[in-house]
């Protein structure tokens, strides 16, 4: 299906080859992603991300990333960086966008531009402990894509739908996951 003239910068062949190679290697497919966070002051923290585990061994990003998080001034914070819940939107947007590029490449669709706007709706009565019936996090997330590509509207919609179907972040947002938090 891959046509050579289409180039979205995704090496789909490498991904397909990996899928084939991993068929007989169940252990190599188990990944662990990591982040290390350090409190700064107030609601400000810095999280470093570099190492991860996968393909049966320790792996590392080329460089370490440091990501700050804080709350805005209207929450009486110093607003050194975006809020943690906004990182969820960052994760979802970038995951779906990467998926769109990969799926389009696999389907031989040349992309010219892919833009999206995300809105997460949240009622802060939850986190403020004002009403126990109100959940803490988002109760509704809306992603709006604007895509310019050599494809029909239906084809573009199918690419976006497939991207959601294979998105790790979309999955972890829409489905429950076990979370263990402990103190050492």
């Amino acid at each position: 299906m891959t046509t050579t003239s289409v180039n979205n910068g995704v090496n789909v062949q490498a991904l397909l080859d990996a899928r084939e190679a991993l068929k007989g290697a169940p252990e190599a497919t188990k990944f662990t992603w990591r982040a290390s966070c350090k409190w700064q002051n107030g609601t400000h923290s810095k999280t470093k991300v570099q190492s991860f585990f996968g393909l049966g061994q320790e792996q590392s990003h080329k460089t370490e990333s440091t990501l700050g998080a804080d709350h805005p001034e209207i929450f009486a914070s110093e607003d050194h960086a975006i809020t943690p819940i906004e990182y969820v939107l960052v994760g979802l947007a970038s995951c779906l966008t990467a998926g769109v590029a990969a799926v389009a490449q696999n389907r031989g669709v040349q992309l010219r531009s892919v833009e999206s706007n995300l809105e997460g709706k949240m009622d802060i009565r939850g986190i403020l402990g004002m009403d126990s019936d109100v959940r803490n996090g988002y109760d509704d997330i809306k992603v709006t894509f604007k895509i310019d590509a050599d494809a029909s509207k239906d084809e573009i919609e199918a690419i976006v739908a497939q991207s959601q179907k294979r998105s790790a972040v979309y999955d972890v947002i829409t489905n429950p996951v076990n979370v263990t938090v402990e103190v050492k």
Partner: protein
Amino acid sequence: MGLAASRCLTARSIDHVVLERGEVANSWRRERWDSLRLLTPNWQSRLPGYQYDGADPDGYMTMREVIDFISRFAVFSGVPVRTHTTVTCVKRNDAGYDVATTNGNLRCRTLILASGACNVPSVPALSQTVPQSIQSFTPFSYRNPSDLPQGGVLVVGASATGVQLADEIVRSGRPVTLSVGEHVRLPRTYRGRDVLWWMDASGVWDQRYNEIDDVTRVRRLPSPQLIGTPERATLDLNALSAAGVELVGRLAAVRDGQALFSGGLRNLFALADLKMNRLLGTFDEWARSHAREAEVGLPERFEPTRAPASSRLKLDLRNGELRSIVWATGFRPDYSWLDVPVIDDKGHLRHDGGVVDAPGLYALGLPVLRRRKSTFIYGAGDDARELVDHLASYLATPVKARS
């Protein structure tokens, strides 16, 4: 499936016997709910050398009619069937297979597994975490809505089984919540013809397993949302919503007595609508390029699946509103009696178009075994013929020449 194979074996004068654990058409007699009708129209009820000749070619057989149809075929074909004979173990020997049954032992050079893909309801492990106060049903234990306690019902799964059961249960006056995972949407009729007429005529159904991209995925697809009714009604999720069924996402977990559903329902609708429209586009293209427009109606497009503004993410299983769960989560084959190393780690039979990964062993009636129609009665004949051809040439090969 076994009877179709028998007919082909007889045509080649290959000595054989068909083993049946109960009576002829046993699963149709004992493992189906009362209201079920075939998904295929009567004119597609066709077995090698035998076909429906009644007055209603566009209708759908009730289970009683299916049982009669298959029983008449067995008599018509003179099938050497040994009923009330359950196979308890199959082992390889030097020349073929040892078959132990509840009715004596046999030896054979070749063996066709025609027991199909639906021997046991497949129920997810999380069903174990459902509170004891909720009664669980499977398509094998459910016969009709009156089997269920009064009160709310959660139907898990939106294949043909799930949508049919949700529909008749909500009509019995019980509130129904339908948990929807990946599903296949189809209209009952398209441009005035049964959708399965289109599948057949356009050649989609004859698509072969080795021509399909990612056949492993296609083999695992749930059955299409179809129902056979005298009205030839479409039973999609919009029809169920209109009947009062509440649609929720895939059942993801049961935690603290709450069923938790995925929030990804909207995308599942989009995927199913897009796939349906692509298929209808294939039909339109076929009608155009084969000059068949005159005999069908105008192209149609159906309303997209209506997503609830905000689908419910939790359902309390302990407050008494919900009384039962129907697990319409598919079926799996039972190979517990097959002592031949041909089952993969997911419990599937290793085969290439029904030629199983062991000499002289064959399978029939599995999803997309050789073509898309393989699990339908209509698909039995072609698969059986081809596999019996293979089997005959296997028998004709001297033992020494086999690897």
